[in-house]
């Protein structure tokens, strides 16, 4: 009798499927309520938030498909709550709030988590939680997500686990405390209220489930739901080529003069029914905000494993059991206080690129080339039409890496994030900014047999004096890497951020720097393309021609990067053959 058969004689697999999907639906519904009722543009338009359900031990039962890195905000949440409050001190109607990555909650201070216990027949059954990225939680720089901070004390308010509701009563003092520390207190109040509403939704859904099936049945199937995910990932791992695979890539430093660049190093070991990720050899934590705490690393690895092995595995802790992660304490990927962590996405994305570079040696068809590239732009100031402070928090996507048999996607959020852009019509309605250009960036895709997706150019003109720019840029020097002979994504020589590009005196800026801006200034952001896959000199000339005709690749780049000569909109075969032969000779082939 197989293990499958033994198991099904104990529990009805159909009911497990039904209850498991109910948990997923409850998580999705919490996220839905949060987006619908959120106040800040960042939540209502960009959906920069997530929701999840946990069992009473803190294992993830379901995560809504929003932002994978937010999973890290919750991996240590329930244990944290249980450590601080014994379970008999937790009551129906309680709700908790926290954001301190070093207390095991969150991966940056902007991500505020609200969590609530779910009781049924007086028994603690589960926790529900949602995470919203708040566009300003105080600190030295507007938007609280600067690349320039040197330690976490500069990054904003730190919240240990606190009650935000006690037995159904709102702790308005806690809400006021959070609001008071933000440059835009109204938004914080509105967003926190939306988070509370979302949690209430989650609590009532899980309570209904327990009423429908009884707590014992729900608990049994909760466990089986985790077991199911575990079996599925182990089944996928069993088919992989066993062995050890190595990869590394650079994490750029924001201030090139003062600090040398850091590196992420990975040994991936594929065992019989386990994947081991060893990050020994990764650089020590840095004096900038690109450090990540262990939970952020774990959620990044969990994301990558699911994407590579079986995208349809239910997102729960069952499949985490087949994954082992080792990261040296005090390193870039397992930071200790007081390391700054605001730009954690920066390093998380690079970690995924490194995992892909290792995994392409295991299964070339599953991995995708480097996607490291995003510009986070925060513009803050006072809107003179109403005298109110504003924080325009916006990230701009880069191109995604190419796949083994397909080009990469143009201008798309990569891996651990998946928020939307802010519609220009919303942005111009809400903030004193006009967008004058928003388009794909020619020649930015990393050359390869399959080309990386294109990055973006976005120009914004300021309508107010005394504004400030902060944020960070990923991929300014090292865009996403190529795989199997593919080349890194590209950027114009000016880099990611230029002030007054089309004026007589353009000024190249550090994309992670702090700048004061004047009325009439135009900020141009360039984001890099994704890495290429395979040797670009083996790309089908017709594909290169199509790119040239559509203006995605220039005639010059077609010749230099791909060895394809295009004259008057047609491929010049003779010259193409010559260019490609020369290249082959130069490479000693």
């Amino acid at each position: 009798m197989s293990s499958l058969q033994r198991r099904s004689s104990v529990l009805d697999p159909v009911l497990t499927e039904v209850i498991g999907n109910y948990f997923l639906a409850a998580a999705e519904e919490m996220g839905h309520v949060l987006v619908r009722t959120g106040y800040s543009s960042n939540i209502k338009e960009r959906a920069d938030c997530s929701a999840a359900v946990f069992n009473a031990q803190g294992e993830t039962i379901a995560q809504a498909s929003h932002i994978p890195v937010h999973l890290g905000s919750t991996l240590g949440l329930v244990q944290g709550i249980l450590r601080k409050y014994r379970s008999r001190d937790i009551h129906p109607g309680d709700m908790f709030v926290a954001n301190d990555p070093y207390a095991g909650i969150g991966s940056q201070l902007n991500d505020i988590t609200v969590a609530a216990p779910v009781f049924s027949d007086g028994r603690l059954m589960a926790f529900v939680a949602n995470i919203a990225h708040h566009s300003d939680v105080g600190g030295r720089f507007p938007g609280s997500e600067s690349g320039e901070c040197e330690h976490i004390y500069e990054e904003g308010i730190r919240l240990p686990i606190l009650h935000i509701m006690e037995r159904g009563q709102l702790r308005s003092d806690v809400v006021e405390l959070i609001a008071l520390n933000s440059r835009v207190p109204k938004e914080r109040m509105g967003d926190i209220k939306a988070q509370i509403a979302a949690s209430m939704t989650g609590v009532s859904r899980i309570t209904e489930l327990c009423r429908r099936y009884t707590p014992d049945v729900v608990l049994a199937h909760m466990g089986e739901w985790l077991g199911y995910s575990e079996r599925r990932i182990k089944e996928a791992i069993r088919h992989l080529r066993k062995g050890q695979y190595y990869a590394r890539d650079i994490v750029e430093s924001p201030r090139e003069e003062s600090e040398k660049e850091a590196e992420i190093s990975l040994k991936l070991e594929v065992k019989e029914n386990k994947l081991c990720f060893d990050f020994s050899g990764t650089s020590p934590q840095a004096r900038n905000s690109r450090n990540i705490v262990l939970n952020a690393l774990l959620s990044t690895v969990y994301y990558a494993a699911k994407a590579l092995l079986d995208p349809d595995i239910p997102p729960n802790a069952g499949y985490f059991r087949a994954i082992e992660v080792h990261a040296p304490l005090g390193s870039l990927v397992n930071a200790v206080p007081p390391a700054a962590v605001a730009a954690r996405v920066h390093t998380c994305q690079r970690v995924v690129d490194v995992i892909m570079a290792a995994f392409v040696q295991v299964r070339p068809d599953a991995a995708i080339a480097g996607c490291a590239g995003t510009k986070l732009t925060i513009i803050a100031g006072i809107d003179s039409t109403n005298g109110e402070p504003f924080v325009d928090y916006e990230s701009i996507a880069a191109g995604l890496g190419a796949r083994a048999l397909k080009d990469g996607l143009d201008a798309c959020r990569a891996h651990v994030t998946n928020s939307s852009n802010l519609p220009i019509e919303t942005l111009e309605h809400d903030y004193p900014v006009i967008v004058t250009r928003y388009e794909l960036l020619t020649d930015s895709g990393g050359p390869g047999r399959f080309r990386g997706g294109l990055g973006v150019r976005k120009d914004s003109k300021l309508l107010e004096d005394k504004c400030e720019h902060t944020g960070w840029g990923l991929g300014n020097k090292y865009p996403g890497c190529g795989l199997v002979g593919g080349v890194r994504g590209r950027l114009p020589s000016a880099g990611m951020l230029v002030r007054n590009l089309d004026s007589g005196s353009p000024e190249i800026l550090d994309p992670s720097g702090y700048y004061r801006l004047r009325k009439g200034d135009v900020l141009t952001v360039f984001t890099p393309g994704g890495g290429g896959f395979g040797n670009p000199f083996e790309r089908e000339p017709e594909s290169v021609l199509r790119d040239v005709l559509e203006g995605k690749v220039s005639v010059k780049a077609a010749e230099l990067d791909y060895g394809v000569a295009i004259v008057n909109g047609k491929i010049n075969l003779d010259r193409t053959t010559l260019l490609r032969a020369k290249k082959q000779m130069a490479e000693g082939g």
Partner: protein
Amino acid sequence: MAFRVGADVGGTFTDFCLLDPDQAALSVLKVPTTRPDPSEGIIAGLLSLIKPNQGKRIKLDFFGHGTTLATNMLLEGKGARTALVTTEGFRDLLELRREKRPRLYDLQADKPSPLVNRRLRFEVPERTLADGTIIVEPDRERVQEIARTLAAEKVEAVAVTFLHSYRNPRNEQVVKEMLLEAIPGVYVCSSSEVASEFREFERLSTTVINAFLGPSVNTYLTNFQKRIDRLGLRTHSYVLQSDGGIVPLSVDGIAPVRLVASGPSAGVAGALHIAQRCGISDLIMIDMGGTSTDVSIAEHGRPRLTNEREVAGWPIKVPALDIVSVGAGGGSIARVDSGGHLKVGPESAGSSPGPAAYGKGGDLPTLTDAHVVLGSLNPQQPLGGSILIDRELAARAIRERVAGPLGLTLELAAQAIVTITFSLTVQAIRLITVQRGYDPRNLTLVAFGGAGPLHAGYIMRELGIRETLIPRYPGVVAALGVLTSDIRMSFRRTRILQALSENALELRVVFSELDEQAKDWAWRQGLRVRPSGLERSVDMRYQGQNYELAVPVGTGQLRIETDSLVSRFQKEHERTYGYRFDDAAAEFVTMCVTARIPSLELPLERLVARGASSTPFETRLVHFQGDGYVSTPIYRRNDLSPGVELQGPAIVEQVDSTTMILRGQEARVDEWGNLRLTG
């Protein structure tokens, strides 16, 4: 003789419903759907419908149809050679979209490929700001130059979309006029006329789709009318839009993008009509066919609409019925995945090879096979009147692919397939009720489509629903819907205003303009709207939020009371999301006026009871969840006259469907011939 005819074009069959008002009788007909031009099948069906009356003077007072033409063109990417004219600096919006990736964990997923090639996307120096101020007039020389290129490139359709045109359409209008003059014969539409709402990508997507569909849809509508005219029938033709309303068939009066979800809306319209005749106005509708199940709801007799539909990956900002679709129906394939769980759908065996039981070479188990094994589908009676079924083939497929791997008996495996399928539908019903603030237990379930009545009993039990209505002819509800829909056309415009009394005047102005637009549209169609037929609503939100809730403004005389609108909005917010902010400012965002002209009442007579008892024509073993095999009485639907009451377990069979009544449930036949399940 004055007939009224409704037709619904499905994937396999085109269904007809003919009403003869003199006889107060409905008749139905099914003909195969023709490809590639479904209008051939429609005409053929129409001819055979009127054939028995040959020689008489025939008049068609009404001939309406729903069409999947626009949907299919979009799904297959086969539309006009389309160009885009847009604000300078923004030609790539169609590819940039909202910067989200299509599927979170699937690295191989692609965005839908843009409907306009990058070479055919042109930029014009021009600019309007968020408050409607024009800071740059369109560059006329540049427009002329673009027009010459469009002509040289043999473009068939052009979408004009400028930033903030929902606030001030002038620049778009100017450029559209110039293009119409410079390249006559080319289909040109502007975003402010197609979807005058903010958020540039969604408006652009809607406008481009409208242009992409424009030429073919117009040709189709024109040819269709010509063919009808050629039959010598004096008739008024109508077509069903995505919002479940019908409109006169005319090229000027219809925005092609409004037909994109026409197909599924017919069933909703029909179910709603049937329910209302029975005095039911708050309901959940499930339309379960061969490959998918559509779930929707109606409140106070009005179906729920949405402005956020996506088709083929493209957002469409025109009113459509709020339908949640699940990829599970009779032909859906069951399989055991690598973690040992059973999945049903979304892959379907279709009609060829079809379920294993059809014996047409399909060896994968489907939902239909499960019902054959369980005995709920009659192994002796041909399905749909024509397809013979083979229980042994069904059993073999389930044994090999499901029962074996799961270590279950054949019956339990088949029952598991049924349970998984109705659980998916239950989940969709929860999504569309609970998530939108409705309690399913307070609604009546209406189950139709071939497979709906087979699962209604389980679904109502699972959700605690008290009553279910199974229409007399579950398979032709959609065709009836076309026949009974109201004429309806809506006009929308975004104007973001604080919900304060000093803005009442501006709100009033927008509504009066929309009223005029609606009346003008009706006038051009030769119709007249009564004042009570102008239905107004305004989408509102708390200032700072970005999703709106529709608040009715009232019909007839236009009266704006901002205070009462705000309090209605507060109530709606609380109902939908469970809380309200009493101290937060609210905003008006998008105003909507719908012209509605009610359809004629169907002069149907109630059926007469012919004795309240009925005997089963046979008894067979049928497997029920939880009960195992039960010796079950089987009834013929045609034998059941009004007043008959049946106790579950029981099965009711008819040519187009089978109804399952569970133990503890009761079914009563009502005066319209519908089955009413309770318990």
